[in-house]
């Protein structure tokens, strides 16, 4: 039984928590970082990193399969899941090692164990009391299910999906959001039959509608099936597989059902409510500066309602550390945070969709332009189709960038600066983008929106 005192105590060592800790020590604060599992949290161990390793194996499989088209003679002999796993685990292990080293080198005190908030300044970890002048809650999220839908056996979440040691013959995926379409894409590339079940009318329903439609077309071409606009009713399983029944009575049979219907906040039983913190359906409610209703207690990352993304967690963490240090950092709204979905084709966006911009600024106060990647040399070379859609305020800034196509995730940094800096297409037009890149397609779209398309009408 001991008591340790810090300027800042961070509960949870995932993207949000460790970013807060790293920035806080940089600013001269002493930090205690409490983690019950592994530093790096969901993103490093069960999320971003391992899924992107799988997606790269999937890309390699597709490239190998289609190599003849490029004049490369290869014979594709299937997937070696054991090697896929070795690759995935190797990537995670090396990043984990790097992160542990960094956290140590920066002088953060890591406290291993499950913490419970017992007062606005105190976290109890087993016998130990950890006291901070400020406390940051960063306990992250877990895979949710639907009422009455029990996880187990052949009904799995992303955690189990990641670690499968075989390629299923046929998978049903419940949920056509980011996690659902990413796994669907991987499995399809690995040779499985896949059916996605999405209750809303479109795949990736949080994206621009034209992007959703293009993804649906691309998935159909890839042989990924989907059911849209009809809700899940029930699932049964036996030794041979699962049968999913939808509300219209139709059924989907498969080896497995992946449940990817969203993530809840991991806050139950951690004492937040008891200390008086406002919690809504598990999520911690904060103001736009990430302060909870209890002075000195902040929340970051997936437990704060909104986008659940690692770099939002990083941003939150850095923000809160700077806020506590009195640096008065600027607020970045969720809307202006870039989103990437790493399926094939890839999706990336930042800012307003056309519909939301019309709502905000008025239909006649915005204009849009959609550049077809068919006009982009590098995209043709890569054999991808897709588009870049921009939304601007008439005679005003670019407020939305929406892309779909192989590798477009790498272009979103430029979109992010443009939207956050409220640039006008005319500001960008003088700077012709490098030829022949996919990046150039973004340049062409800006040129067109500035009224001077180059390689387009």
């Amino acid at each position: 039984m001991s008591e340790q005192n810090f300027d800042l105590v961070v509960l949870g060592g995932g993207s949000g928590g460790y970013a807060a800790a790293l920035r806080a020590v940089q600013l001269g604060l002493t930090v205690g970082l409490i983690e019950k599992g592994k530093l790096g949290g969901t993103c490093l161990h069960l999320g971003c990193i391992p899924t992107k390793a799988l997606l790269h194996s999937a890309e390699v499989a597709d490239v190998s399969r289609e190599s003849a088209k490029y004049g490369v003679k290869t014979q594709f002999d299937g997937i070696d899941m054991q090697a896929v796993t070795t690759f995935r685990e190797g990537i995670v292990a090396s990043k984990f090692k790097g992160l542990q080293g960094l956290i140590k080198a920066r002088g953060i005190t890591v406290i291993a164990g499950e913490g419970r908030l017992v007062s606005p300044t105190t976290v109890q970890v087993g016998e130990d009391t950890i006291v901070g002048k400020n406390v940051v809650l960063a306990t992250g999220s877990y895979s949710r299910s639907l009422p009455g839908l029990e996880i187990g056996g052949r009904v799995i979440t992303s955690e189990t999906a990641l670690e499968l040691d075989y390629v299923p013959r046929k998978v049903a995926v419940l949920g056509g959001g980011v996690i659902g379409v990413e796994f669907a894409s991987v499995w399809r590339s690995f040779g499985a039959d896949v059916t996605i079940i999405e209750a809303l009318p479109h795949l990736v329903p949080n994206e621009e509608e034209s992007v959703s439609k293009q993804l649906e077309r691309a998935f159909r071409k890839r042989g990924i099936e989907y059911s849209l606009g009809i809700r899940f009713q029930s699932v049964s399983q036996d030794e041979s597989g699962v049968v999913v029944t939808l509300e219209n009575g139709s059924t989907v049979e498969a080896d497995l059902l992946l449940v990817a219907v969203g993530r809840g906040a991991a806050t139950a039983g951690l004492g937040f409510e008891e200390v008086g913190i406002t919690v809504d359906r598990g999520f911690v409610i904060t103001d736009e500066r990430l302060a909870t209703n209890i002075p000195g207690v902040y929340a970051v990352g997936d437990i704060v309602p909104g986008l659940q993304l690692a770099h939002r967690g990083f941003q939150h963490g850095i923000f809160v550390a700077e806020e506590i240090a009195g640096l008065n950092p600027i607020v970045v709204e969720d809307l202006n945070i870039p989103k990437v979905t790493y399926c094939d084709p890839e999706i990336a966006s930042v800012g307003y969709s056309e519909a939301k911009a019309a709502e905000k600024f008025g239909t006649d106060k915005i204009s849009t332009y959609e550049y077809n990647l068919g006009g982009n040399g590098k995209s043709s070379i890569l054999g991808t189709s897709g588009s870049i859609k921009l939304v601007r305020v008439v005679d005003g800034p670019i407020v939305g960038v929406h892309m779909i196509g192989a590798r477009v995730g790498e272009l979103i940094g430029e979109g992010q600066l443009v939207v956050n800096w409220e640039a006008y297409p005319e500001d960008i037009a003088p700077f012709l983008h490098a030829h022949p890149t996919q990046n150039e397609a973004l340049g062409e779209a800006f040129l067109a929106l500035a009224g001077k398309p180059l390689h387009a009408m």
Partner: protein
Amino acid sequence: APEAEAEPAASRPRSTPPVRALARVLGVDLSQLTGTGPTGLITREDVRAQLARPAAEE
């Protein structure tokens, strides 16, 4: 522990890069302007307004 640093932002012209670039192109000196944007940021409109101001005021 490393020293708490102040953001070097103080030395940075108080506007966004594209607006600063526009000001350079138009020959508007940002140091002459008071920003009307959030937290005093100099906006595009501030730059244009300065440009529209009659020469007599300069």
